[in-house]
């Protein structure tokens, strides 16, 4: 069972309150596809991802980024039960989407870089970074949990 300090809970709710899921989600997914190009294999139905400009301008990438980032709301609202809250989503990613669970960690890294770039050092302090990365690590673990 994950333990959260009051400071960590406060950091997560403060950051989440300032995050625009459309903006951050799109940026995070763009970075995943650009920095780790093999991840493009999961998005065959998204149309043109063949150049940097194509990825940045791709409406399906923007929409899916928003969907994924919005999915974090479940974790924010269920911080003491993230594992169970994500059980169905984990099964789906394993059995239907066949996503290598290592990609969850990679996407989490991209989200953190985007959040750092958006908020800068006075908001994304070392303490906030610790809470945020711990939060994402718990989500990543929950998403990988139903894989056989």
């Amino acid at each position, binding site marked *: 069972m994950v333990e959260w300090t009051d400071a960590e809970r406060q950091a997560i709710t403060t950051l989440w309150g300032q995050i625009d899921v459309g903006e951050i989600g799109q940026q995070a997914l*763009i970075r995943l596809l650009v920095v780790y190009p093999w991840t493009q294999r999961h998005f065959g139905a998204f149309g043109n991802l063949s150049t940097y400009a194509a990825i*940045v301008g791709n409406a399906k990438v923007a929409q899916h980024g928003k969907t994924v980032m919005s999915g974090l709301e479940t974790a924010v609202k269920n911080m003491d039960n993230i594992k169970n809250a994500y059980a169905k989503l984990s099964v789906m990613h394993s059995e239907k989407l066949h996503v290598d669970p290592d990609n969850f960690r990679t996407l989490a890294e991209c989200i953190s*870089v985007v959040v*750092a*770039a*958006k908020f*800068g050092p006075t908001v*994304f302090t*070392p303490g906030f*970074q610790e809470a945020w990365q711990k939060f994402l690590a718990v989500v990543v673990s929950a998403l990988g949990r139903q894989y056989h």
Partner: protein
Amino acid sequence: MVKWTEEERRIIRGVWEKVDIDEIGEELWARALIVYPWIDRYFGSFGDIFTTTAILKNPKLAALGKVVLSALDTAVKNMDNFKAMYAPLSRQHYEKIKVDPDNFRLLAECITITIACKLRAELNPQVQATWQKFLSAVVEAMNSQYK
């Protein structure tokens, strides 16, 4: 050795120009020690390194931050052959300091986050991709003398 395009070289130099070695050197240790607290096992003789405030005031960490970023400066200025130049540093970390090499990757992540906070929107996806390619090459060079 890793191959670099002219564009990638330009991007790395552009990022590095904006790095203040003193400022980034301190912040990066604050992030590494707070986000990955087990790293403090390497700093037994450094005094108080257990809160952000203490870390940012710690002169030994400030000095070490400068040392780490000066080594990165060497890599920026020798992008085509820093792997060989890093061999003695890698050997030192392996034989004398006995650093778990996974920590090089974690420190690289903290450097990227620190630079993201500093550069903000200038660390766009393409710049991020090039910068992380560079840091991966540095991490590989640090790993090179580990058995």
